[in-house]
């Protein structure tokens, strides 16, 4: 059976699909899809195989795009994706995640929507914005955005979301009520550096095979929780910087993750020492190793944003990232060596890997 590897790349000017065979060496690049709309996130609905793309046009507003033929043709909808005529306007969508027969969308200003009809129509998951902390929510540099949706792998009533700069919330009742999950996470920019909320989570995920194990890259460090977010332990020591955006986990090993530290929030947000590097742990953050083989080691002013890193599910896991300079890099050996697979794209906002059995 032939395997086709797709890389779904959301950019500031359209979605792109990169395609390779099982070797993952040589990739073709599609034309800009989704009519060149700004696309913040792309993902695959595992139930239907549909490719989803989330974003918003300055002219036409927010929408979730959907393709059932691997990107050849697209439809889109934002029906119901509103806080109502009296509510704040929604300019764009930052995350789309399919789970358990539903599709979830995280929007700006921060809120969660659900579709139970494959994205044709959307319903506001109101409980989150009814949390008592809502009046105190403050935006991060990217706005007040719900950018991370991490469903619990086995308990369909549970889900974690990440909001900048508010923090992590969990629901255990299918979205009716939500609880802050920020204990132990620093907010260095607050008078009280351990507030109940106000933390600037950048990316978070629930680990493969261990849904109660969470990892997050925060504005102020990297953290792991072993209890579903009830408390967090900092795992920053060993890294060159506490600041970074993406965090991705191994598809079969909860102990292994990859991140890309940036040189700090006020120094340009480049890879440290302007040298290309990805950092990996295989022991839950107890130790870290620098992976730079194949990445440029001089004058590399590279920035990788929160959604612009991904792993595939091949036996030797592929790791991918896209840069704000429009490059896409790949490793087919779990981060040990890297090669560039695309350049000259618009600013990359998101990368997602999709392995298709033809």
């Amino acid at each position, binding site marked *: 059976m032939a395997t086709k590897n797709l890389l779904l790349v959301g950019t*500031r*000017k359209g979605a792109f699909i990169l395609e390779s065979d099982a070797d993952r060496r040589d990739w073709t690049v599609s034309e800009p899809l989704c009519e060149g709309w*700004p696309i913040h996130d792309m993902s695959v609905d595992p139930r239907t195989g549909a490719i989803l793309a989330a974003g918003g*046009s*300055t*002219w*036409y*507003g927010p*929408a979730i795009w959907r393709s059932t033929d691997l990107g050849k043709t697209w439809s*889109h*909808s*934002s*029906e119901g*994706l*509103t*806080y*109502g*005529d*009296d*509510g*704040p*306007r*929604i300019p764009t969508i930052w995350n789309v995640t399919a789970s358990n027969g539903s599709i979830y969308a995280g929007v700006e200003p921060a809120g969660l929507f659900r579709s139970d009809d494959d994205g044709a129509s959307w319903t506001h998951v109101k409980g989150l914005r009814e949390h008592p902390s809502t009046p105190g929510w403050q935006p991060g540099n990217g706005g007040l955005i719900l950018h991370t949706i991490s469903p619990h792998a086995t308990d369909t009533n549970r889900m974690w979301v990440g909001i900048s700069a508010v923090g992590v919330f969990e629901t255990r009742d299918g979205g009716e009520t939500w609880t802050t999950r920020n204990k132990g996470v620093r907010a260095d920019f607050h008078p009280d550096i351990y507030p109940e909320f106000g933390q600037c989570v950048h990316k978070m995920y629930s680990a493969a095979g261990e849904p109660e194990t969470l990892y997050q890259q925060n504005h102020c460090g990297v953290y792991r929780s072993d209890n579903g977010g009830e408390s967090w332990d900092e795992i920053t020591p060993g890294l060159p910087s506490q600041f970074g955006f993406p965090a991705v986990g191994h598809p079969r090993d909860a102990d292994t993750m990859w991140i890309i530290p940036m040189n700090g929030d006020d120094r340009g947000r480049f890879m440290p020492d302007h040298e290309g590097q990805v950092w990996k742990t295989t022991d839950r953050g107890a130790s870290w190793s620098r992976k730079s083989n194949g990445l440029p080691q001089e004058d590399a002013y590279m920035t990788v944003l929160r959604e612009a890193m991904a792993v595939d599910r091949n036996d030797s896991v592929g790791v991918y990232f896209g840069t704000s300079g429009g490059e896409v890099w790949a490793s087919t050996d779990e981060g040990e060596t890297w090669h560039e697979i695309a350049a000259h794209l618009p600013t990359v906002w998101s990368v997602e890997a999709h392995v298709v059995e033809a």
Partner: protein
Amino acid sequence: VPGLRNRIVDAGPVLREHLNVFVAGQRADLSTTVRAGETVHIIPAVSGGAA
């Protein structure tokens, strides 16, 4: 056309900020009446898009 309203109208309801709508050649808003036979232009404004 299903979904067309969402592309043109934002919460409020108001016409989206970076779209211009003309009825019979005159700038229009959501209160404008369209009479039979009149032409409606919906034109993306030069203020939208990304550099």
